């Protein structure tokens, strides 16, 4: 029934929901769980590249339930905690996140929420027990639950704005570049003459959640955006556009614009003008990078490791623009067997990679890399060890990234495309330089005392001579 996953890169549903709520300005999470549940998420996040979110660390409001709350029920402890939280933390919306414990004990959280809502407080609740699913499940369910109950606690008229779009599917904290990507996709959609509910980060907030019903279209940029998008469709009849991934490069921007035009009215001239500008910008910078791209031999063979959206986005770019060959793609956002999603992106994946694997187990991923023998890896810091072992470069594109701070750098759109090229060339150059210095020191006879190091250098030299012919 159960198996061990080595170094899993996904937390539980509660963690996904917590990450999500933490990044909505004005929303306050209240965890109904034992103390450890929230803290694990904190430690996992801390080790990674995204900085600290709002209410991070030990300061997330929570019930910290104990044995007696399991025995006698934790509902009254929750009531106390919500009241205290409202007193000490200013918020526009309080979101109760229910864990495994509250689900198993069967606390009547709905009744508790109704009671507090009746007193005029904006509170919603959601069940994101870890046994229900992983982090991605937590993201889609907390959003869907908030969107289905927010009307009851934050009343407003529905007033459809024909230029307003909702965007979902970019999970805060789960893509190291989520913030930059949100900003970039917002910039692009605004370039098309649209207005955007981003929900997360400095431009988002509870207002976006309230306004979501006024949008003319919802775009889901990964399968994880589907559920909240469908919820809005069901409640407010807002059409849904399902995209397998964020766009990267001008050509994909055009395809996005075309598919949006298929759903709502956008000003064709405005879009064309914007795209022409973007294309010129892209051409200009790629042209400037041309020698670096050629000299550093970027068109190598690769293995890609990441969530499905990242793999599709990056894979299409690497194969189509850089002409790389992707031996294998490893998809790390696992679907549970009984989870239904409309999006079926297997055709996209087949066009990208020779072999497709689905796992988030570090050992399995290492075995895949070992057998595929790529010249470069695009993945997370967890793949660094195997990259070092095989002496190949690794470009960190998916969660977790350990030795960096990434705030608003993008990996999608045009800006993301350019900074991805920067990153790739930088890693390749550094890798080459290190090899060269290793070779030089070997020739000069340094470090020959250490036999382990020598044999490593000899291997490097052999590989290098193969590369240089």
């Amino acid at each position, binding site marked *: 029934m159960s198996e061990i996953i080595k170094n899993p890169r996904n937390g539980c549903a509660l963690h996904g929901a917590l990450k999500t709520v933490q990044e909505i300005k004005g929303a306050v999470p209240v965890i109904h769980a034992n103390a450890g549940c929230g803290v694990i998420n904190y430690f996992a996040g801390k080790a990674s590249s995204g900085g600290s979110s709002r209410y991070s660390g030990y300061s997330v409001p929570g019930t910290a339930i104990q044995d007696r*709350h399991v*025995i006698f029920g934790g509902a009254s402890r929750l009531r106390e905690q919500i009241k205290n939280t409202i007193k000490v933390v200013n918020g526009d919306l309080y979101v109760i996140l229910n864990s495994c414990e509250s689900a198993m004990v069967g606390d*009547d959280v709905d009744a508790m929420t109704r009671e507090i809502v009746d007193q005029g407080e904006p509170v919603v609740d959601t069940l994101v027990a870890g046994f229900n699913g992983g982090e991605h499940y937590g993201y889609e369910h907390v959003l869907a639950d908030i969107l289905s109950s927010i009307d009851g606690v934050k009343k407003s008229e529905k007033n459809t704005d024909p230029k307003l779009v909702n965007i979902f599917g970019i999970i805060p904290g789960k893509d190291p570049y989520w913030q930059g990507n949100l900003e970039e996709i917002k910039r692009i959609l605004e370039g098309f003459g649209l207005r955007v509910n981003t929900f997360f980060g400095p431009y988002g907030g509870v207002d976006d959640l309230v306004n979501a019903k006024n949008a003319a279209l919802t775009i889901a940029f990964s399968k994880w955006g589907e559920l909240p998008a469908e919820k809005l469709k069901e409640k407010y009849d807002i059409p849904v556009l399902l995209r397998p991934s964020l766009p990267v490069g001008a050509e994909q921007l055009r395809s996005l614009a075309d598919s949006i035009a298929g759903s709502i009215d956008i000003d064709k001239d405005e879009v064309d003008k914007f795209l022409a500008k973007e294309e010129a910008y892209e051409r200009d910078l790629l042209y400037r990078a041309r020698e670096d791209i050629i000299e550093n031999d970027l068109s190598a063979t690769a293995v890609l490791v990441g969530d499905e959206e990242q793999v599709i986005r990056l894979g299409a770019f690497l194969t189509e623009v850089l002409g790389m060959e992707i031996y294998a793609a490893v998809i790390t956002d696992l679907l549970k067997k009984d989870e239904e999603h409309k999006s079926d992106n297997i055709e996209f994946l087949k066009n990208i990679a020779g072999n497709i694997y689905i796992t988030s187990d570090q050992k399995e991923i290492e075995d895949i890399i070992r057998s595929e023998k790529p010249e470069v890896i695009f993945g997370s810091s967890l793949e660094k060890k195997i990259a070092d072992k095989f002496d190949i470069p690794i470009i960190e594109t998916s969660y977790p990234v350990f030795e960096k701070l990434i705030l608003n750098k993008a990996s999608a759109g045009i800006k993301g495309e350019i900074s991805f090229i920067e990153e790739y060339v930088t890693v390749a150059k550094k890798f080459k330089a290190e090899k060269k210095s290793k070779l030089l020191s070997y020739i000069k006879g340094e470090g020959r005392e250490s036999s382990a190091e020598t044999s490593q250098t000899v291997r490097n030299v052999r590989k290098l001579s193969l590369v240089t012919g």
Partner: protein
Amino acid sequence: MAEKIGKHIAIYGKGGIGKSTTTSNISAALAEAGYRVIQIGCDPKSDSTNTLRGNNYLPTVLDSLREGNKIHLEDISVKGFSGVLCIESGGPVPGVGCAGRGINAAVTLLQELHLFEEFKPDFVLYDVLGDVVCGGFAVPIRDGITDRAYVVSSSDFMALYAANNLFKAINKYAPSGGAKLGGVIANSMKPGYHREIVEDFVEKTGTSIAGYVNRSIDVQQSELYGKTVIEAKPKSAQADIYRELAKYIARNDDLVIPNPMGVAELKEWARTWGDRIYDIENGVVGLAEAI
């Protein structure tokens, strides 16, 4: 676990089958015979020891735990008939919280309070509620808390079904140190085929009968006085039945791991008995031939 002080016996059985009545009478009979006895009611209803202590108020272990004060053994135990130490685990109000976890926590707390070291019992009887519905209720037969379980059953199918479920739990936990089965206590026996049904059941499941307890008006009467039969009607035949049963349980070290029937097998077994009873009631064949 440390060396066990006394014999620890869990009593299971379908709801309302007579667990508390039978357990209390066994406790009373053992105490009367000079043994040191503790009876722990593992049931949120907290009515297990009523007839041992004349229905007097006794705060439950979990009531004290809920209040969060420091708990002393004196606060949650009282001596009843013949010095039987009465304890009720208690539990959450119906529909809230987790009673299974509650029983688990109460038993753990009693161990932490060194109940057994202090009282030095010869026998500890755990009167466990209803069917084994989830892991929480199997706690007394798991983890080495008790080493033997008895199940109270009548000849009714649902009572035997519950007994069979308990057998499944024992079967699962006994190999890793859980309790084994001491036997089936056949309760509410009336004249007719009732004994035969239970006897057939124990034979099929590789178990045995610890004793037969008749259905008797003495039991109900004593209960109304807030007493066990042993206390209220010490000279009655029913009191002697309980004394016999207590003696058997005190001596019996013949513990088994039962072979529970599968669901289909149990249904099939019940069906054949259904046919036989029909025939008996309608005088198609005589009882002797039916068996």
